[in-house]
């Protein structure tokens, strides 16, 4: 890992965080005085990924054109790190005609075929689809890979286990990425999951499994690099579980009354921690921190501006696109 890799990862994490922070602000801006989930310029459920940037950034640093990702209900960090156009994605979140899906999908259903990126709001159901994309790459003889992302809660869904087995038995170029943020809405991992690590579950299917502790972006980068090289070389699937952090609520509006470790959440924020370690190495100056932040601010503001100034679809458009 070079200094450039480190800086690029830091920059990407800051960019994603700025995005999530501004979306949060915008989401709540017009929902008062009586907070109403369906009101405002961004209506509906909103699952933000703040704190989980290391997972996306460590993996996507190794991806190239043609590689696929299936993301779950909390997709923004993987979308941005994978190169999904910020303007079109934001316009989709605002329900505009210029959005990735012309306003039909919304934040949980982002589809970007140019980048082979998709999401599903149904838990763990993106995993089989990633296996299918990997199957296509294998049959076409490319060295592309598919990354299937899911939370630790999703790993108790049948589709997770079926997908691991399928990928193993067909030797598919898939990388399963499990984001263990300790919580599935209000249910802690300890109450839902037998066994300590999904890396161990992977070995039950004969798949290499790695658990990355401490939300460590560099360890994630290393683990993902090895798994992706393996998959590209035709050596089959891997699983990486990262112990990450849900910095905010499950969705916006979640009061998190159930959450026992709320006081220490901010101390565990991975971005200031990474900045400090890069500064210690001499890889990051105060000026660079300010520049990177300013760059992110400008890019995100422009995307929000693009979205807000884009036209809305009309009621008649709802009848289009049922069939090809």
């Amino acid at each position: 890992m070079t200094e450039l890799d480190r800086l690029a990862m830091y920059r990407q994490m800051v960019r994603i965080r700025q995005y999530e922070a501004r979306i949060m602000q915008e989401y709540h801006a017009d929902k008062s005085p009586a907070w109403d989930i369906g009101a405002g310029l961004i209506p509906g459920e909103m699952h933000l990924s703040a704190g989980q940037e290391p997972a996306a950034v460590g993996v996507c640093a190794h991806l190239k054109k043609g590689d696929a990702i299936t993301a779950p209900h909390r997709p923004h960090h993987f979308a941005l790190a994978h190169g999904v156009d910020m303007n079109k994605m934001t316009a989709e979140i605002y329900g505009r005609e210029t959005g990735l899906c012309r306003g039909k999908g919304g934040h949980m259903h982002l589809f970007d075929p140019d980048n082979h990126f998709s999401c599903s709001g149904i838990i763990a159901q993106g995993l089989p689809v990633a296996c299918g994309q990997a199957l296509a790459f294998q049959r076409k003889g490319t060295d592309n890979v598919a990354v299937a992302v899911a939370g630790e809660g999703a790993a108790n869904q049948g589709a997770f286990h079926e997908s691991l087995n399928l990928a193993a038995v067909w030797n598919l170029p898939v990388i399963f990425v499990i984001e263990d943020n300790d919580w599935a809405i209000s249910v802690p991992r300890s109450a839902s999951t037998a066994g300590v690590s999904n890396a161990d579950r992977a070995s039950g299917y004969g798949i290499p499994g790695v658990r990355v502790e401490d939300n460590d972006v560099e360890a994630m980068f290393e683990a993902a690099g090895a798994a992706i090289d393996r998959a590209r070389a035709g050596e089959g699937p891997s699983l990486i579980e990262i112990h990450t952090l849900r910095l905010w609520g499950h969705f916006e509006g979640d009061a998190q009354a159930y959450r026992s470790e709320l006081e220490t959440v901010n101390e565990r924020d991975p971005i200031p921690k990474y900045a400090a370690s890069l500064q210690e190495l001499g890889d990051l100056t105060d000026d660079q921190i300010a520049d990177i932040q300013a760059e992110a601010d400008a890019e995100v503001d422009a995307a929000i501006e693009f979205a807000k100034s884009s036209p809305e679809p009309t009621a008649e458009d709802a009848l289009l696109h049922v069939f090809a």
Partner: protein
Amino acid sequence: MSTTTESRRVTTAKAMAEGIGQEMQRDPNVFVMGEDVGAYGGIFGSTTDLFGEFGPDRVIDTPISETGFIGAGIGAAVEGLRPVVELMFVDFYGVCMDQISNHMAKIHYESGGNVKVPMVLMSATGGGYSDAAQHSQCLWGTFAHLPGMKVVVPSNPYDAKGLMISAIRDDNPVMYLFHKGGQGLVWMEKNPRSIGEVPEEPYTVPIGKAAVAKEGTDVTIVTLSLSVQHSLDVAEQLEGEGISVEVVDLRSLVPLDTETVLESVGKTGRVLVVDEDYKSFGLTGEIAAVIAENDPGMLKKPFSRLAVPDVPIPYARPLEYGVLPTREKITAAVKDLMA
């Protein structure tokens, strides 16, 4: 139904939870399980305060394993317990439909009537707040189509409690489908009809009996769930314009109270069916068939229906409201029938 003394105004969500809690007090075999039904109280408030009262032994948070825990509910019911299981959104039926349709709904019949499955599967339905295609469906027609489960669809707090108690006491599997927009949640726009008078003591509302929610003489609206609230708003509005609308709240799809429907349509001679589910192969067609089989001559005007026009529920507000049965569309459809 009991002769009530004390009643207060509560939300539909609170009424449901109260019904479950009172049955838990009465019968130790009743327990609750599902995702976030414990400390959280159910994402849509259906288990509010139950965890505090009954604890984790009887109000059980599950892993995100719907096939597993719905199947476990079936097994527990077969052994004589009375589980109330929550599928958080009805849209998630896809991951557990085998347990619902091939097991929960068929075991009694397959066993020649020898095995009972006294379980309630409750689930949140409906759209209107931009939750898009995977979190906004109603799907009650799908469950009603498959034989072997009762399907109840409350529209107000009073029925929500009474139907819940009936569902728990029923020896059959009951799908209890509540509309998110009718729960009276503080964080979602609501019709004032989502809060209403509910007696404190336990009572039942019979499953299979529709209610005439408002009497009228010109047009019958046959509807269910949140669309009852919209239809009542429209009926009150049109009253002032000289159109007398009768609103029939089906309250359950299985069994379907065809008698109440036919009686009302026989009286008015004009019918509009309002359904937030998909249009084709569903409730609206079923009601048309009931009328056609009985006496098509009772209609003075051609049958009319308003439902989601066979597209997935889109995200953006103008798109979503383009396909939902809104008050405006209900009003226009009633006026068409009167033209």
